[in-house]
């Protein structure tokens, strides 16, 4: 089987595929160990109950489901909450070394909207530990991996996968990879926005690949803005300030010295869900109580230097190096940044398979778990829990499937498409198109959305799509960043169009999706917007009701919460 992506989801799936005894090939657009997952800071959510004994899977389930504002599929959140502890302990047995409690068990820290202290962590470098551990496991296995290969097409035949075509950035040559099963674990699309915490790879390639192959996309409008990104100097705008800062006691102030979260969220304060904190910060800035750079203050200095060096070393380094600010003495300046995509490829809740036979998806590229808002730490948990499940399911599938080879003409058609970008007369610079797209997304499809802005974004995307036909670059296929951008931007324009269409369609406010013109939650909108590809290229929309909670899970919700489902 073929795994596209070597982040946490892809690597965990590989480990499982190997256990099942199938041949595994992992391809990644960057080098092994560099995927976006490496940047994850705060931790992995798992109800181990090591710090707060009261914690258990049921509470984790409720937190995840309710904070996703009833838009998630309970079958995913139930599995996440139940499996996460076992997956974390297993990762420890693979070699990960977590921070410890006084009694020697894994230490857990508080995070936004988690009822209990639940995040297993390795200082503020949890993602690094996770990816290294899994990477080592893969290196010492029979899995093959190909680095710096960009998959540009998934080849299908009669509704099932045959394989994929990819460009080797190192050599400029093409690969045609026939496979019985394919897992897309290609991460998110944060780079569609101008201000983002995401790495260059987060361009939603997997969504394009899946959609073109006939899979459905869902909840695309649900983009998470992390409350705290760096804002100054401009060159580092968007870089993440981990929620761990607030988890460990960081307090938010406006320029009047007011701890404004007491006003917006008297109960959960700085540790309310991300959408709530991000909107609160945004409002402070918009109403003139922000700093000259357009941010608010986040203060952890009162905890003292020793604590900060031990718990938040990366944050210390980040501010020291990039802003010249010593966070053990001074306040940080922060503003919201695009962070995570709750939407993505629609998959079956039992198998993580798409509607295309043999095509699976896991991790940030897939959707269904987080609903309208993702809790911190639930993504890494997602990677482990559903990486494993998907690896297992895809392997089972592959064992019973027959390999159909990709035909020569199928491969050469795709090669021609890629090469055509190098032969455009008077080409349009792909970066220019990409930048314009990012600008319009940031200004019109951000934290506050409204009909006018969304219409404007759609109009601009339509304009860009016209120009995009002429995007081209010079040079060869070998390590040509311009070519890579040209390929990415083609896909992103389509995804952006669907994303904005969904945002315009959803006339209510729910989780990360906030409409100034429709500020309330509306029960009749408790449905998922699904995009289906039309034969001729375009898309149609479908509105699926959210799967009903079974009575035993519904009983876990409070009376008020039950009103919403």
């Amino acid at each position, binding site marked *: 089987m073929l795994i596209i992506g070597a982040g946490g989801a892809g690597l965990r799936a590989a480990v499982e595929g190997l256990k099942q005894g199938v041949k595994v090939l992992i391809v990644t657009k*960057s080098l092994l160990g560099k995927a976006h997952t490496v940047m994850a800071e705060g931790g992995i959510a798992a109800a181990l109950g090591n710090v707060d004994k009261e914690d258990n899977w049921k509470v984790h389930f409720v937190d995840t489901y309710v904070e996703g504002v009833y838009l998630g599929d309970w079958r995913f959140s139930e599995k996440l909450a139940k499996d996460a502890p076992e997956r974390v302990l297993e990762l420890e047995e693979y070699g990960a070394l977590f*921070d*410890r409690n006084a009694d020697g068990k894994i*230490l857990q820290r508080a995070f936004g909207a988690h009822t209990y202290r639940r995040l297993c962590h390795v200082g503020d470098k949890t993602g690094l530990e996770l990816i290294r551990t899994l990477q080592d496991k893969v290196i010492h296995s029979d899995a093959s991996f190909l680095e710096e290969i960009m998959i540009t097409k998934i080849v299908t035949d009669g509704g099932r996968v045959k394989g994929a075509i990819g460009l080797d950035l190192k050599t400029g040559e093409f690969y045609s990879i026939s496979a019985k099963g394919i897992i897309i674990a290609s991460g998110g699309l944060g780079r569609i926005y101008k201000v983002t915490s995401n790495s260059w790879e987060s361009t939603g390639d997997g969504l394009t690949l899946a959609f073109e192959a006939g899979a459905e996309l869902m909840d695309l409008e649900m983009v998470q803005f992390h409350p705290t990104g760096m804002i100054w100097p401009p*060159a580092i705008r968007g870089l993440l300030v981990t929620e761990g800062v607030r988890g460990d006691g960081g307090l938010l102030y406006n320029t009047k010295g007011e701890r404004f979260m007491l006003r917006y969220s008297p109960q959960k304060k700085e540790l309310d869900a991300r959408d709530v904190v991000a909107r609160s910060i945004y409002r402070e800035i918009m109403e003139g109580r922000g700093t000259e750079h357009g941010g608010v203050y986040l203060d952890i200095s009162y905890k003292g230097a020793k604590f900060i060096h031990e718990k938040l070393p990366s944050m210390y380094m*980040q501010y020291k190096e990039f802003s010249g600010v010593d966070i053990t003495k001074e306040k940080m300046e922060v503003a919201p940044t695009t962070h995570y995509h709750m939407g993505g490829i629609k998959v079956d809740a039992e198998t993580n398979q798409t509607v295309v036979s043999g095509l699976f998806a896991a991790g940030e590229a897939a959707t269904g778990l987080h609903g309208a808002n993702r809790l911190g730490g639930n993504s890494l948990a997602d990677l482990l829990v559903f990486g494993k499940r998907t690896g297992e399911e895809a392997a089972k599938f592959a064992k019973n499937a027959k390999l159909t080879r990709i035909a020569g003409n199928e491969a050469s058609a795709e090669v021609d498409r890629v090469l055509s970008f190098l032969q455009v007369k008077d080409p349009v610079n792909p970066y220019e198109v990409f930048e314009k797209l990012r600008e319009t997304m940031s200004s019109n499809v951000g934290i506050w959305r409204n009909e006018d802005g969304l219409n404007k974004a759609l109009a601009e995307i339509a304009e860009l799509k016209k120009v995009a036909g002429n995007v081209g670059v010079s040079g060869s296929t070998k390590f040509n960043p311009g070519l890579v951008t040209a390929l990415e931007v083609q896909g992103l324009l389509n995804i952006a169009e669907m994303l904005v269409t969904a945002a315009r369609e959803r006339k209510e406010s729910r989780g990360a999706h906030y409409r100034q013109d429709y500020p309330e939650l509306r029960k009749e909108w408790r449905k998922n917007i699904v995009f289906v590809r039309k034969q001729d290229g375009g898309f149609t929309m479908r509105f699926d009701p959210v799967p009903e909670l079974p009575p035993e899970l519904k009983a876990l919700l409070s009376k008020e919460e039950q009103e919403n489902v």
Partner: protein
Amino acid sequence: MSDKVTISIKRSDPSKGEAPHFVDYEVPTQEGMVVLDAVHYIENNIDPTLSVRWNCKAARCGSCSAEVNGLPRLMCKTRVDKMGSKISIEPMRAYPVVKDLVTNVSHNWEIAKRIPPFTPKPNLPKPWKIAAIDITRSKEFRTCIECFLCQDVCHVIREHESNYLGPKHMVKVAALDMHPLDSIDRSGFLHTEGGVGFCNITKCCQNICPEGIHITDNAIIPEKERVVNEFYDPIGILIHRRKKK
């Protein structure tokens, strides 16, 4: 700070027989700009075929290693305003160039594959218990972002004449050896296949590690001592064995 800076990049494409040569680019500066921003400016506005490897732009992934004004640095962690008005950027010298600033570092996976992996002691009661204090030593080495800059500065590696693993891999071995629940002894491996004897503790690697890992002091020297104990000193063997139990 002036509003422009000259970036001089060593470019080449060996597969086309293109010899390395420096090309100068004028780049407007912005407050807080890092060297990688300057390279991106060139890529986006002057020559989109300029090859550079990067990922996070946050000093987390270790992709953007290069020699900036001759110093091994992460381009995303090097402020332009600290490097003068003309900045040279070259690919790492220890590795074959793929194109422009991109090098082929895949040899490191072959080495990584040879290092005996984490092997926990058998029959540990679950869940594992580990005292907080026991993880501190290993933890330092686990912050390695695999930027390979230490490999790049190590003269033993640059000369390509020994089987020495190199500092990055010594850090890995130390991370494994100092895991409180690991059960195997890697000193035999280091002594023979690992070629640890070739390191003459110059500390060049330690001085440039962007993560500030004390590579020589905390990883290499203790590992060397273990090898010496194991292979040259019979009393050492006894002490060593007892410690492992």
